[in-house]
């Protein structure tokens, strides 16, 4: 699985995800996949699950932590709700380990294409919208360091 190969660009990763999701026949398969992602992935180091790193949605909580390594931003995150966590796993796969500039320029349209649009609606108040904003803010902050 974890064979080291050339780092993929954000667009490449997005396309991969869209392709993966195209294989699912119905919502149940899609959701089961996200739930399994949410269950299996340890997404954040316990020391970063702090009050400071928390994004309080009305519905679920999200923790986000960022680091810069070799000019690339590494995100880790977690949530107390599994489906939220599954979506976080997908977002992190896209945004993490990328150059700040690429993160700033990236959009989340692919979430629409994989049928998960409703999770990024502000009315759900699950913390994901704020999380994406937060990812971008980190990227902007690191970008200014690089300049």
């Amino acid at each position: 699985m974890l064979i080291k190969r050339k780092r993929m660009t954000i667009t490449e990763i997005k396309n991969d995800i869209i392709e993966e999701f195209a294989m699912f026949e119905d919502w149940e398969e899609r959701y089961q996949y996200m739930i399994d992602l949410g269950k299996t992935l340890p997404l954040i180091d316990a020391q970063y699950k702090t009050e400071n790193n928390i994004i309080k949605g009305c519905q679920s909580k999200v923790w986000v932590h960022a680091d810069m390594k070799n000019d690339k931003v590494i995100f880790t995150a977690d949530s107390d709700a599994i489906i939220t966590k599954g979506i976080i796993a997908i977002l992190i796969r896209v945004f993490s380990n990328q150059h700040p500039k690429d993160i700033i320029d990236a959009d989340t349209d692919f979430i629409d294409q994989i049928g998960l649009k409703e999770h990024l609606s502000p009315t759900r108040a699950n913390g994901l919208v704020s999380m994406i904003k937060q990812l971008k803010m980190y990227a902007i902050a690191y970008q200014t360091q690089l300049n």
Partner: protein
Amino acid sequence: MVSEYHFNQTSRNFALMLNVNKIREDFPILNRKVNGKPLVYFDNAATSQTPQQVIDVIVDYYSNFNANIHRGVHTLSQEATDLYEQARIKIQKHFNAKYSHEIIMTSGTTHSINLVANGFSALLKKGDEILVSALEHHSNIVPWQMLCERTGAQLRVIPMNQQGELILSDYDALLSEHTKLVFVNHISNALGTINPVKTIIDKAHQVGAAVLIDGAQACPHLIPDVQDLDVDFYVTSAHKICGPTGVGMLYGKEAWLNKLPPYQGGGEMIAEVTFEKTTYADLPHKFEAGTPNICGGIAFGAALDYMNAIGFENIAAYEKELLDYGTQQLLEIEGLKIYGVSENKTSVISFNIEGIHPYDIGTILDKMGIAVRTGHHCAQPIMDFYKIPGTVRASFAFYNTKSEIDALVNGVKKAKMMLS
């Protein structure tokens, strides 16, 4: 009058008088599909659905009567004013207020509460106390916190027990000559507990405190008789009683409404204006600045007509049946825990499944066309009390059915299977 204690008894006798299939025909939205499945609407405690009879009144108003009220000599304005004032009288009769001018039309419960809280700014001083219950909608605690900041009065909380009931002995202990105002909801939105408001009001009056009851969750299920309760202020929203959003009422005893200063300045609320001085209009207009939600007010009246035609005893009896059935069916799911288990509760089931986040359950249910509420239900203090992030809340109305409850139970089982 259906008081909190008669509620369960009256229920049984009327169990068969409601024809739910016929009632469902009144609600066009119940034919909708959501995510490809027939809608099962169990978020009635957040807002109720609107029957065709009320929709017709709204369409009729804009098609035939739309005009500004209380200010035109022309026929349309007269007719619109008449309809609006007739609605006020319907509301007065429904709640058994002594005078129609004791009914202030507002934009809803929140507006009504703020109106009273603002009025009390002028009446409170440092050392005074306001009691609120631990079962409150948290947005409704904020106006009292703001009032305390403005006046130096202190906010104190009537605690609750594990069943989700207020602890009346603690309430007794909190009451004193410093207590100026008590604020309690008639029925808790998060748990469905019916509070013993008559007792609460009587006790507050013994120390000379005024009482404001938040009836937003009660009015869909019973008819509060404001004179029998002897309540000083009673507030509610139309959108939980088959009416439109953005309209509601404040009932206040005449003497209290005369005592409170106006809330907002503007048109309609004045008798005479010069740059030196303004004389306020009489009740109820003193509190109704600006052009109101005219259509909403009229539709509010129509919604009460609709509910009364079905009959609140029938509604209560049928909803009790749904509550009992739902409770029994849901409890068969292993690991499911219900929060709020008072003997006196309405058709609200707030629950969690061990080890599963309520948001996840709600998300899966939505995929199956089942609308429930998840989260803290604007009652963060209650969730903190139980040390949970929130609950899944299914709230039933008189147009719901047992087979919809079966769909919910199956949905929850499926969510559990997928999530654990």
